[in-house]
């Protein structure tokens, strides 16, 4: 009876919202405000973090990650692979139910993979699933995947919401991706008003096998409203009035919020986000390793980050960030060019640069997140050794296009470098960035290609780790990918004091199953 009532008010809420009427959140609803909206509820049609975070609440995945970012069993209670790494067999948990009441079994996993590899509308992340050539339902609780060639990055991929299991009943449902999203996750979709809010209710039948929540069953609270509040000051105001329970605060107000103690600040760890120097290496001056090293030695990342972000961000030594396979701060620190302005000046002098003839470069920075201020600190540090960097701030679309354009430009003598930011859950990201042709057509070499090729096929974790770290060493010693800090963006959550149990899993996935809202 109670559940029926809950459903009826929630339906009324959905109708009210659709009609543009204000429906106040019920006492048992968690309200989470974010700066933007999802692109779609179809996990095969988008790549944004905002979308992934919501999919992780509605859908389940075969695997999950632990607090350190390692894949662990979830809907798949175990898995085996053949020695060649071309066949994986997953054994599924019994009793998992889709939100429409149908059991989740191997046919749903097969449906998901078939959709990802559809001839007409393949998943936008098809490439990241790996060279899967077949998904075979061995029995209702066993699925076998066959790969053309070994692809070890598939296992962490299956723990990420990109691989959300889409229940096959979605095929018959109208509006999959916009009005319908049948998953088996801890929260069920009630409605999505694009640009405004997503209304979810708890999946009372939920069993948590491996997701990073203490709660083994259904979420404690009845509903979860994910609202879009683009203006940071408005999010802060809504947090203060209690309209919203959890939101990203305005960045510059974080110290004041901390001091006041009115809201709790939670910083996501192991986000996988890596911010690094990248150079236009096909023309002078950065086609010379010494020029790249001069920049790396002139950069005091720890001081700059502390100045701008305080304790909200930390220096990163490796080309993939903490929580990602292979990351080892001590290992990377041996090869990452250390802060040494004298060494930098010596390299510049060797290249013929002086105060009268400084090394000149554009310094491209992605707008937002106080990165422009950080860029100014770096600019001052580079000026200390005589490098004249001109900051250019632009939105992410322009930055990506411009970096590629700069990398492809082989003419001229003015350099270009950028503070690039990428996020992924596996070192396979290095393959995308630095294997020929490279995501930005940047530095590539046959030697690096060979190392990166092997990181994809080595099935033994120790052997793969050694190869991944060989790639780290190559990138660091040649100052191709000079890591600066982690996390890079969207990682601070302000939480009202009556909210208990909110946490953020690796790769910025907030967990709401443990959340209780006190009086």
């Amino acid at each position, binding site marked *: 009876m109670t559940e029926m009532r809950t459903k009826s008010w929630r339906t009324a809420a959905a109708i009210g919202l659709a009609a543009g009427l204000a429906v106040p959140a019920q006492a048992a609803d968690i309200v989470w405000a974010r700066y933007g909206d999802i692109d*779609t509820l179809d996990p095969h049609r988008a790549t944004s973090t905002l979308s992934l975070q919501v999919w992780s609440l509605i859908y389940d995945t075969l695997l999950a990650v632990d607090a350190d970012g390692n894949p662990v069993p979830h809907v798949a209670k175990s898995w085996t692979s053949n020695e060649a790494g071309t066949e994986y067999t997953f054994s599924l948990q019994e009793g998992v139910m889709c939100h429409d009441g149908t059991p989740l079994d191997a046919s749903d996993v097969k449906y998901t993979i078939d959709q990802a590899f559809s001839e007409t509308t393949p998943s936008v992340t098809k490439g990241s699933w790996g060279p899967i050539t077949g998904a075979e339902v061995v029995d209702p609780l066993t699925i076998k995947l066959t790969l053309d060639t070994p692809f070890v990055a598939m296992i962490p991929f299956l723990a990420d919401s990109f691989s959300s299991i889409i229940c096959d009943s979605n095929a018959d449902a109208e509006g999959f991706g916009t009005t319908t999203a049948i998953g088996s996750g801890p929260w069920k979709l009630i409605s999505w008003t694009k640009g405004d809010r997503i209304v979810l209710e708890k999946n009372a039948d939920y069993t948590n096998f491996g997701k990073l929540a203490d709660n083994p069953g259904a979420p404690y609270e009845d509903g979860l409203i994910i*609202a879009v509040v683009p203006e940071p000051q408005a999010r802060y105001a809504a947090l203060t009035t209690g309209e919203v329970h959890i939101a990203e605060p305005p960045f510059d107000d974080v110290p004041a919020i901390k001091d006041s103690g009115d809201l709790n600040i939670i910083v996501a760890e192991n986000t996988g986000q890596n911010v690094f120097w990248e150079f236009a290496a096909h023309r002078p001056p950065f086609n010379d390793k010494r020029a790249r090293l001069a920049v790396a030695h002139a950069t005091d990342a720890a001081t700059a980050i502390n100045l701008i972000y305080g304790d909200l961000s930390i220096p990163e030594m490796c080309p993939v960030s903490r929580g990602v396979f292979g990351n080892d701060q001590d290992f990377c620190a041996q090869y990452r060019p250390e802060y040494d302005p004298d060494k930098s000046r010596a390299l510049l002098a060797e290249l013929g640069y002086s105060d009268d003839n400084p090394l000149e470069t554009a310094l491209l920075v992605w707008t937002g997140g106080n990165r422009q201020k950080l860029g100014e600190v770096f600019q001052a540090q580079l000026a200390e050794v005589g490098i004249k960097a001109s900051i250019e701030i632009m939105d992410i679309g322009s930055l990506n296009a411009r970096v590629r354009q700069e990398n492809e430009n082989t003419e001229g003598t003015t350099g270009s470098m950028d503070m690039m930011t990428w996020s992924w859950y596996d070192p396979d*990201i290095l393959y*995308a960035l630095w294997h020929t042709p490279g995501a930005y057509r940047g530095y590539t070499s046959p030697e690096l290609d060979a190392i990166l090729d092997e990181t994809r096929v080595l099935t033994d974790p120790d052997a793969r780790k050694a190869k991944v770290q060989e790639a780290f060493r190559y990138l660091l010693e040649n100052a191709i990918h000079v890591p600066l800090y982690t996390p890079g963006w969207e990682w601070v959550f302000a939480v009202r004091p009556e909210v208990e149990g909110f946490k953020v899993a690796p790769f910025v996935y907030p967990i709401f199953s443990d959340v209780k809202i006190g009086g």
Partner: protein
Amino acid sequence: MWRFLSTRIAMGALTILATTVLVTLLIHAVPGDPVQIMYAQSQGTTPEQIEEVRRSLGLDRSIPVQYAMFMERLLQGDLGTTIRGGQPVLDVILQRLPNTLVLACSAMFIAIVIGIPIGFLAAYREGSLVDTGLMILAIAGISMPHFWLGLMLLFFFALELGWLPVSGNGPLNLILPALTLGLSNAAIFARLTRSSMIDVMHQDFVQTAYAKGLPKSLVLRRHVLRAGFLPVVTMMGLQFAFMMGGAIVVENIFSWNGVGRMAVEAIFQRDYPVIQGFILTFSVVVVVVAIGIDALYAVLDPRIRRA
């Protein structure tokens, strides 16, 4: 009158067509394409697949071909699908357009109700302290940027007094964004009404009316108001377009789910079909309002419809 209207409609259609061509050219001049942005900052896919997605969206074609494809679809009543998420652009716009129109109309109502009486009063008391005081207020209103006024109203009414909600899309949520947008436009209307009325008040036909011995209230009502309103009516049309545009900032501050916010997101994501759909809708609304104002103008001033 019909001839007058049909000329206006034809000119309006041409304006819309020119706008769509211009926008298509401009959005392609901005660096970065939507597929690249979609896969930015996370691995996602292979370069071959990016090319495949680009091909499937027609982004590998030349700009004129892309425009022709857009027009071909448009003539069939199809604005295409969003690059992000693959939803019909028309649905996405229609879901949000009413919100922006409600906001712009409410703001226009506030601007008229506050601005015109103030302007009229200032004109009536020309040169007095009241006039000076009201015009200082109007200049202050014009000078205040939307984002500042919006945040101040938000902090005062939502945060300090707790009378109104901070964000959302209900009737109560409409008050603050409509006030933000309406108040600065009220100031514009007040200044324009004042100068227009003063202009008319000093004209010979008004002096003649007084000389005939007509009472002041009758002169003002019958002669001054009607003639003085013509420039104000023109301004209303222009300001409505500005309000639709100005709504973008206000929509962001108050999380009002309108087309302005959608357009800004689409521009950052280079979601071409959404941008084109937005511009088309926006220009249609502005042109329709402009034609409406022209018609109203013609009703108020018979010389226009004969011209």
